[in-house]
């Protein structure tokens, strides 16, 4: 099986889906000749031409809105937002239109569109190239939000998103793009949207997280194993709507829960995860539900001293798990 980086898995999924279904096309800023500012669409313009890899004017609401129209016709647009931070001008189209189309038309119209965007920090991106924006959308029935943590998951989930008949926000961790590599099958496969995935079985402490933090948790878990602390890790994969069953099961498994997000703490999606647990299996818990998150400041500052302070890292995770284990 070939080893791929996280971003290569993105490109592979796009390429295969475009090959498979000629209704699939890409639109966004600099996705054409340049192949995207991170290179996610590299080679696709050469392979599929101007029409199917469309450089748009610099206007996110149009990218989303034109995509919605094309999707209503029956095409399968895959729109790229250059950075998740720049999805903001498209919020009205995404929330008022894409999310509500099927519902408001009583199942007459639908929007089979995927919107990809790189999110997350740790890349000297400062306030506007580092944000986690999922919480903004994680209260909008009609939307699905997928946030994969490994190259394998990227390929299977991006294909599933493109084939989904409803709008999917697909957020890729930009620091994972080149940092993470793993084996990815060359064959066609899809992974189920809406299902969380156990990334590590364990019996002492349950960690529930998503995105790059899954890796921080895995790294921490490995270290803690030496101390005899056995960590269970659930990767949410889809952060909206949440996989309640898997969350409850994972919480019950150890009775001690650590929730991790790179987002600002207050109002992040792990608050909802905590609420699900507190509502459904409170009496299975042996300790308070702990949350490890970014501080409640607008976003990651540029200066390295401050950025480091903001980011989640394996050490922070390790400490938090140990504390819970010792509780």
């Amino acid at each position: 099986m070939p080893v791929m980086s996280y971003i290569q898995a993105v490109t592979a999924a796009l390429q295969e889906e475009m090959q498979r279904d000629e209704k699939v096309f890409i639109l966004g800023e600099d996705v054409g000749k340049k192949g995207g500012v991170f290179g996610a669409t590299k080679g696709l313009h050469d392979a599929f031409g101007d029409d199917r890899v469309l450089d748009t004017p610099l206007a996110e609401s149009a990218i989303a809105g034109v995509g919605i129209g094309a999707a209503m016709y029956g095409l399968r647009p895959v729109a790229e937002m250059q950075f998740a931070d720049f999805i903001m001008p498209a919020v009205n189209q995404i929330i008022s239109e894409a999310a509500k189309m099927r519902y408001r038309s009583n199942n007459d119209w639908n929007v089979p569109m995927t919107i990809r965007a790189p999110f997350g920090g740790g890349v000297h991106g400062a306030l506007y190239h580092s944000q986690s924006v999922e919480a903004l959308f994680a209260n909008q029935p009609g939307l699905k939000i997928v946030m994969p943590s490994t190259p394998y998951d990227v390929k299977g989930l991006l294909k599933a998103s493109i084939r989904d008949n409803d709008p999917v926000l697909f957020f890729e961790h930009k620091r994972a793009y080149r940092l993470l590599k793993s084996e990815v099958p060359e064959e066609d496969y899809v992974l189920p949207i809406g299902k969380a995935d156990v990334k590590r079985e364990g019996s002492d402490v349950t960690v529930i997280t998503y995105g790059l933090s899954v890796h921080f948790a895995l790294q921490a878990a490995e270290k803690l194993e030496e101390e005899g602390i056995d960590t269970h890790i659930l990767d949410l994969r889809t952060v909206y709507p949440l996989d309640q069953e898997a969350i409850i099961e994972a919480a019950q498994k150890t009775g001690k829960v650590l929730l991790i997000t790179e987002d600002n703490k207050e109002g992040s999606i792990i608050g909802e995860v905590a609420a699900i647990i507190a509502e459904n299996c409170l009496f299975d818990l042996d300790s308070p539900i702990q949350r490890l998150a970014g501080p409640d400041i607008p976003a990651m500052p540029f200066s390295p001293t401050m950025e480091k302070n903001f980011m989640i890292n394996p050490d922070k995770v390790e400490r938090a798990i140990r504390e819970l284990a010792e509780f």
Partner: protein
Amino acid sequence: MAQNRHQSLGLTDEQAVDIYRHMVLARKIDERMWLLNRAGKIPFVISCQGQEASQIGASFALDRNADYTAPYYRDLGVVLAFGMTAKELMLSAFAKAEDPNSGGRQMPSHFGQKKNRILSQSSPVTTQLPHAVGIALAAKMEKKDFASFVTLGEGSSNQGDFHEGLNFAGVHKLPVITMVENNKYAISVPLDKQIAGKNVSDRASSYGMPGVTVDGNDPLAVYEEVKKARERAINGEGPTLIEAVSYRFTAHSSDDDDRQYRESAEVEEAKKNDAIISFAAYLKEAGIMTDDQEQTIRSEIDATVNEATDYAEKAAYPEPESAYQYVYEE
């Protein structure tokens, strides 16, 4: 010379009368909705009155069996012309289960009907414009011969989506026709407080497309411009912006009291140019509609509206639990 205007535009006598019929039908449905609202039977109305000529004139210039339309809430005339029936519209007004627009989920006049290629519309204004551009993009990509037709109010032309959508259409030379129905008010705000330029159609030059302002009270003038625009669209010459100028005869909606911000004299003055009166006069002058025929048309329409109302009033509401359906594909 007035006599031959419709023929020189390529419209048959029957078609010209049919335009009139649609205008009257739109008006009558609309008037009935106000009565029903004032009688407490339906909670909300938002009107097409004053804009029927633009709407029907434009629609008749399109291929109503192939083109797509993304109407806004006043476009009762457009959706009628595209095939939605009086009964269907009344079902929507009463928020009944059978309403094809939304199954009673949306407010009335939030149109949408896939079988007639009427895109589903929301309340936030102007969002439909990029959708129509997306439809036009699909036409280009799939090499299909249809046009995409989108309408909005002049106030709504100040939203960012207007700019972003039309520029996208202009850059990619897409077959989309945008008609701004300038009725001089956006709720209470008059044109000069909405738009800095003189005409909305001046905005076309920003987007590398032709722009034209037309008398929205003249269905044939609107027909002519939309016809030209459609030809350009189908010939790969790209988009067109049309501004149809008319006047809003009613308050903004049944929730509005327009005496708060405009003089009734102004409204009365505008009603003197009611297109339904002037177009009837034209048809008679042209000798293709008699008083009797007019009467017949009107009584047929009354019957249609009565029937639609009765049916819709008696129809069933959606089941409460049906509210949980169709959030996602099922």
